[in-house]
């Protein structure tokens, strides 16, 4: 039987996703109408014999998290559990090692590991088939994809033996170019992985007895990428790579969420065509891919899309135009508004004729395999870089103003227009 581990991180991680992550754990942030890790769980549950999905992270259990987990069990008929790390960071491998008994209970043959902050059209079955085709002896597979030369150094770089598909070299975020093949943060492991993590763990314990500066927390930090792939497993011939050209992206910032929203909506054509809105009498005008939650109230004279998600209980007034945006649960958008490249937060209110506009940071269309730019928040001259406009939760925006390339923190009452600013 098989299991899946999803590493969901904690509140101290994913700060680039603020202010959206101030009110909700990032893994639960909805993309294309469903929480980020819903898409991971859906993909995993489709694998035959997938018996259990284990979420590992350091979030405190909350109503949202427990509610999400139970609805996942219902929807996908698979056991879903949350294991909370109590020390702040054990590292991507350390956390798994800590819970190895639970992961290995029931003797799974293999298990997937997925990072929560990536999104994509996960080719899990193909990856599993590849992994099995190597043979029955213990080995490990990394899902990889192609990137541009310049962008590859922001990821885990893999050098592949083209004949055997073994990883001959792995380095995480190198400072100089190594390879355009990058890790997607999705792995298939046989249970023997824990032996190697165990070796790294012991080595770590031994090393630090000589290091008087090491804090208690640093002692157990084992990172899968730097410590296991790049050290323990390097040259072992046990690490393999499976390359995919399907859609894949990291989701570090709000801009990435809008980008992922577009791609997941596109995937619905194949997986859930009934979720995409259609034009109809008395229905709003829909252009391209649009998801509208059944409880949302949208005026028929509104024009939505392409690439728009309208969440639960949202109200959209007459003559509203929304394009390339995500409107989160309970938001109210009044008549004649124009919302472009933005995320409008939970229960926020946008007055009549207001314009909310962001700037997309899409990958360079002229470069094959280009990924989203991981742009700095500020430009060298101190100005805010133009990006997706994010309106936090419970924000009140008056009529007839413009909010351009700005980030508004939750519970704020705006009184005038803002451009290129963070509004605290």
């Amino acid at each position, binding site marked *: 039987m098989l299991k899946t581990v999803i590493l969901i991180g904690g509140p101290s991680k994913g700060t680039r996703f603020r202010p959206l992550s101030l009110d909700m754990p990032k893994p639960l942030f909805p993309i294309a109408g469903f929480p980020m890790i819903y898409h991971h769980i859906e993909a995993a549950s489709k694998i035959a014999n997938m018996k259990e999905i284990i979420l590992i992270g350091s979030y405190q259990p909350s109503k949202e998290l427990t509610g999400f987990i139970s609805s996942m069990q219902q929807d996908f008929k698979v056991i879903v559990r949350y294991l909370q790390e109590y020390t702040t960071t054990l590292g991507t491998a350390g956390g798994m090692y800590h819970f190895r008994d639970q992961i290995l209970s029931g003797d799974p043959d293999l298990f997937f590991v997925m990072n929560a902050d990536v999104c994509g059209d996960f080719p899990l079955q193909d990856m599993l088939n590849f992994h099995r085709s190597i043979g029955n002896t213990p080995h490990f597979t990394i899902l990889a994809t192609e990137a541009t030369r310049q962008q590859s150094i922001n990821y885990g770089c893999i050098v592949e033996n083209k004949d055997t598909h073994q990883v001959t070299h792995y380095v995480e975020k190198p400072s100089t170019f190594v390879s355009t093949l990058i890790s997607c943060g999705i792995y298939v492991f046989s249970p023997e992985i824990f032996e190697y993590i165990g070796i790294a763990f012991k080595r770590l314990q031994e090393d630090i007895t000589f290091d008087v500066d090491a804090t208690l927390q640093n002692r157990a930090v084992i990172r899968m990428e730097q410590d296991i792939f790049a050290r323990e497993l390097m040259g072992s011939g046990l690490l393999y790579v499976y390359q995919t050209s399907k859609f894949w992206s990291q989701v570090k910032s709000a801009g990435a969420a809008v980008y992922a929203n577009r791609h997941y909506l596109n995937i619905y054509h194949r997986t859930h065509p009934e979720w995409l809105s259609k034009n109809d009498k008395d229905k709003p005008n829909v252009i391209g891919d649009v998801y509208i939650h059944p409880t949302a109230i949208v005026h028929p004279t509104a024009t939505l899309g392409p690439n728009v998600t309208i969440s639960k209980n949202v109200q959209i007034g007459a*003559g509203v135009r929304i394009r390339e945006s995500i409107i989160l649960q309970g938001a109210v958008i009044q008549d*004649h508004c*124009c919302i472009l490249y933005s995320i409008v937060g939970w229960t926020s209110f946008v007055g009549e004729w207001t314009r909310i506009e962001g700037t997309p940071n899409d990958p360079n269309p002229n470069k094959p395999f280009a990924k989203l730019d991981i742009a700095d928040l500020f430009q060298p001259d101190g100005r805010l870089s133009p990006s997706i406009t994010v309106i936090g939760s419970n924000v009140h925006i008056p009529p007839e103003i413009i909010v351009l390339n700005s980030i508004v923190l939750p519970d704020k009452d705006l009184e005038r227009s803002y451009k290129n600013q963070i509004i605290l």
Partner: protein
Amino acid sequence: MKALILVGGYGTRLRPLTLTRPKPLIEFANKPMLMHQIEALVDAGVRHIILAVSYNAEMLMKELKAEEERLSIKITMSHEKDPLGTAGPLALAKEVLCQDEEPFFVLNSDVICDFPFKSMIAFHRNHGKEGTIVVTKVSEPSKYGVVVYSPENGQIDRFVEKPQEYVGNKINAGMYIFNPSILSRIQLRPTSIEKEVFPAMASSGNLYAMELSGFWMDVGQPKDFLTGMCLYLNDVKHKTPERLYKGEAAVGNVLVDPSVRIGSNCRIGPDVTIGPDVVIEDGACIKRCTILRGSVIKSHAWLNSCIIGWRCRVGQWARMENVTVLGEDVIVKDELYINGGSVLPHKEISESVQDPRIIM
């Protein structure tokens, strides 16, 4: 009586509008700027208007022919081929102006106000001297030429151009009455009336100031054109409120030509003038704007402080503000944001303009 209107040159400060139409013919509150002045002059008894132009104004003359007939007056051009300054044009028109002994008006063509031409005639006759200048009170006099005069009889003491210290708050409003004898002071060469002619007249006690009551504006550039429009509409509200638009969409003072079509759920005003054959589609919000003939404002657009030229098309959900000026026949595509854009004629805009600039 006669009047000389200093029309001047190409009106470059009101570009891009003046690229396709002579400045005197640009419609202010739905009537050509020049006609505001001409009609008020005719009302005060003027029968011959001389337009001092510094370019070939054939187009202007052709359009004014109809007005000549309608008002039963004579309109002639005085064409200065070389620049003559602010006083030279008077010398150029000397023959006509000196045809009789009657005083004549001289106006700056960019002035819009509650024209006091009748009062000017009475005031001028009363003091019996050579010249009368209308002055108006402003809040920032240092931007202009300040007139210092005696409050009892209006006799002008001196002029101070752009004073660095406060000397007074009355400035030259650009409207004068002169006796023909003034022409002996002006030679046919580039002459500044403020610097060369007026000081001499003032020192001999021949120049008097008449205070203007009511609104005044030099509408020669877009920002002031819009401010002047607001002042004018406010004046209409007090004098002839029946001219104002009272439709469902109206807010505040709005002037709308009868041929205009306005959709549902719009908000028009305060301070908007809309010219003939304009179409405003559903859900549009227009504030502090002038919209010239034949333009279309598409649905859900939001316009604040803009001048929309003739035959323009503003797209759906467009947002335009901050003294955006569209020249003739400009197309702004849907969903754009134009902040202080100055757009030349016949241009199609397909990208937002987030910071003020000129779009050629």
